[in-house]
């Protein structure tokens, strides 16, 4: 095969170019690299044709088990993706462009991101959004750093009901900063409000909660917001965007900053990425926002157009004083999110959210009928709920995987004294038949 088909030059063209450059060989151009530093080995295997490459990738994909019925979530959710999402985001004018540094020839990307920011603001009930972050977990960390800057304080309180992955990422980001992270142990799958009251003082910059939380529970954050604001701290809520078709928005509940993972909005599971993180906030905090922001303006003729704005916050200008180190974000995934939200639409997202909850409530009732199985009842749920099995959940999950069912996420790895607990997720894609199969298999395995 022609292993240079992405390097188009003929031998004749190479000779012509070398004569312009004044070199006798391409190798001569590498003369600035001292000979003693040159690579002694390079063990990448020989190349192959496109056909062979694709066949190899098919074989690798076939080494995964595709026939799994998913009742797992944990931050990534198996939702429908309308065909238009792939087709429109797959237009090369979108996916082979770069960051829109030259606005006149990038109005497509810029307007789409402005529309994305609008969708995120409307979904979260907040005033301003950026043009995306990496994922939901890093968005939690960015929100915490934003609150630390905005308040000038040095402590972050995080509810233990927040995804363990988000909590770990938060701690990793703050690992070497002069910031204390205080974690509150959950109580019955909910934020322990007495414990929060005990730590809420003038040192606290932000309280980070997740709604619905890792156990699947939904809480009204409004009273919490009042309490947190009274202490001069900010409420940061990590939310599941599909649930916002039904649940009161974080903005309406009093959150100052909302974050989340956009995977559920038109991005495939794809073994964990790429998806996107979103962040929205009250207008007062716009100058503390991380990452790129698109703003509306006019051109020399007064015509509406869009540009990257407030760039003085960013690393390419502010360097070590920037609000964040983020440069590339997840723009194409955010575009997919916008297309998804626009396709599903205003009433459609509400219907989709209700459908999720109906399926989950059916599943919950079905599981509750299994002798020895109890359901966590401390708060209402959206499309995830916690079950307590009569024994450890892990071996049951292992056994059911062999039967082609990913039954849920056992909590034993993430919380003490929770070996029997299992979080089950039911999206709109799961049929009644599949839910019944889950229940039957669970009953047979316990």
């Amino acid at each position, binding site marked *: 095969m022609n292993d240079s088909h992405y390097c188009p030059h003929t031998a004749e063209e190479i000779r012509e170019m070398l004569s312009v450059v004044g070199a006798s060989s391409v190798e001569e151009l590498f003369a600035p690299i001292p000979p003693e530093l040159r690579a002694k080995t390079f063990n990448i295997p020989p190349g192959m044709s496109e056909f062979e490459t694709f066949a190899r990738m098919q074989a690798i994909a076939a080494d995964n088990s595709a026939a799994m019925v998913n009742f797992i979530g944990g931050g990534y959710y198996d939702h429908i993706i309308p065909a238009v999402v792939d087709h429109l985001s797959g237009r090369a004018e979108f996916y082979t462009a770069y960051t829109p540094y030259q606005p006149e020839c990038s109005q497509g990307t810029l307007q789409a991101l402005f529309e994305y920011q609008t969708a995120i603001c409307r979904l979260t009930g907040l005033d301003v959004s950026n043009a995306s972050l990496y994922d939901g977990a890093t968005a939690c960390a960015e929100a915490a750093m934003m609150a630390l800057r905005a308040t000038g304080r040095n402590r972050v309180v995080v509810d233990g009901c927040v995804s363990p992955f988000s909590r770990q990422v938060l701690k990793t980001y703050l690992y070497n900063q002069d910031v204390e992270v205080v974690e509150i142990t959950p109580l019955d799958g909910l934020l322990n409000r007495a414990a929060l009251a005990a730590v809420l003082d003038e040192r606290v910059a932000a309280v980070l909660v997740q709604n619905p939380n890792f156990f699947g529970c939904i809480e009204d954050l409004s009273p919490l917001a009042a309490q947190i604001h009274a202490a001069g701290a900010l409420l940061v809520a990590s939310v599941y965007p599909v649930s916002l078709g039904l649940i*009161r928005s974080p903005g309406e509940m009093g959150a100052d900053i909302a974050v989340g993972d956009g995977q559920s909005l038109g991005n495939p599971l794809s073994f964990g990425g790429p998806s996107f993180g979103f962040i929205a906030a009250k207008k007062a905090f716009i100058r503390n926002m991380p990452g790129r922001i698109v703003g509306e303006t006019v051109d020399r003729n007064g015509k509406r157009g869009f540009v990257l704005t407030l760039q003085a916050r960013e690393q390419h200008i502010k360097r070590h004083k920037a609000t964040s180190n983020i440069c590339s974000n997840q723009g194409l995934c955010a575009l997919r999110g916008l297309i998804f939200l626009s396709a599903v639409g205003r009433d459609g*997202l509400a219907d989709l959210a209700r459908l999720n909850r109906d399926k989950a409530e059916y599943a919950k009732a079905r599981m509750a009928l299994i002798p020895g199985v109890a359901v966590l009842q401390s708060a209402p749920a959206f499309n995830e709920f916690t079950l307590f099995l009569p024994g450890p959940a892990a071996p049951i999950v292992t056994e059911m995987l062999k039967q082609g069912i990913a039954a849920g996420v056992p909590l034993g790895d993430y919380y003490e004294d929770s070996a029997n607990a299992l979080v089950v997720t039911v999206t709109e894609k799961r049929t009644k*038949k599949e839910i019944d199969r889950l229940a039957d298999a669970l009953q047979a395995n316990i």
Partner: protein
Amino acid sequence: MELIYEKSVPGRRGVKLPASDVPVAAPLPEALLRAEPAGLAEVSELDLVRHFTNLSRRNFSLDTNFYPLGSCTMKYNAKVLENAAALFAPFHPMTALLPGGEEFCQGSLGMLYDLGQMLADITGMDEVTTQPLAGAHGELTGILLISAYHRAKGNRKKYVLVPDSSHGTNPASAAIAGYEVITVPTASYGDMDMELFRQAMNDEVAAVMMTCPNTLGLFNPHIKEISDIAHSFDALMYYDGANLNAIMGKVKPGDVGFDVVHVNLHKTFGTPHGGGGPGAGPVGVKKALIPFLPLPRIVMDDNGAFGLQTSRPGAIGRAANFYGNFGIMVRAYAYIIMLGREGLIRVSEHAVLNANYIKERLKPYFDLPYDQTCMHECVFSASRQLAHGVHAIDIAKFLIDRGYHPPTVYFPLIVKEAIMIEPTETESKAAMDAFIEVMIEAARTAGSDPQALLDAPLTMPVSRLDETKAAREQNVCCLV
């Protein structure tokens, strides 16, 4: 063009949802319910398709235009990579974290492991984590690894050194990782000033962050000496892999003294840039830093089965939710196995040949502050054109009217009126010749009719935009 929200008609829908096969659940308590649905668009599928198709036509892109954006490596993105990524769409990342779940994810885990091995070979590192989600995220992860290394040794370190030609992400990442930044100026020879570097080094320096070749497109011949000096203070060397595409198979960062490397898969390994992301920023380290790598870590057992290590005492924790931007990893893996050893070497050779060709052809027309053999990119200055009142940005806008995405302008910061050109290896001589002619035309027009450049662009959907108004009004969300 109207916004999608301006095309909305109440009650219109773009998607039919699956019918429910379960009973309607009892409603949530009032306090938890949204008062009214979020104000999303209400459009038909055709309205939606026309809207986004027409938006896409308002973009320059690699598939439609030559895009010599320096430092960003806008090379052609092979279509088969997209097909390969789609194969992995259905796999849930949590499956591998379930007890006994790894066995159902051997393809994905094995691919990540192999990709790590290949990237380790290319960069001369001992192990790679694929978790970081972009180059800057890799920098943060890498500097945190360095900080964990120093902590474990009981070193007291306060500073990270960067050259003044570095990407803005370097100092920003160092600052988030808790370090103060010392900036070392560039000497007249185009690399970090060796004398000033020696003076800046001390026992409290944790790391030296370098891009090599640097952002002027120059390979630093003193790099080994810099590494040796840094190591003599027990400071580690950090390699910003933004320009790795110039040196594959020619020199390995690990061989010249670098301890930590991040790789921008969307640059060197031909994965698309997506209009600003997603990228991917795997990080490679030398042996001494392996204990600190983030979790979960992909491991292979004695039987060749792949698994996840989810706890280890020294680890810096977790950089992201799962295993990185997996779909980008699939594309990069397919790219590497398809091009293979010889193909990757040719990528670097032709990237360097193309940049030198453009440099030589344009040298008579634009100032070239650092006139040396370059690697994959060259940096001109529009200072000669400035005499006619024409700035780098005006040349950029003129290029847009001629159908070319402009080079990077005003970076690196150390070159006045910088014009940074990176053609990449995938452009043909004919494409470059046509670009060169337009650049020459721009230089001539700057002398003969500067106003023509100041007025550009005239052929785009909008003319130059008022950025001050955007920053002042902060209208970042549609209010209608």
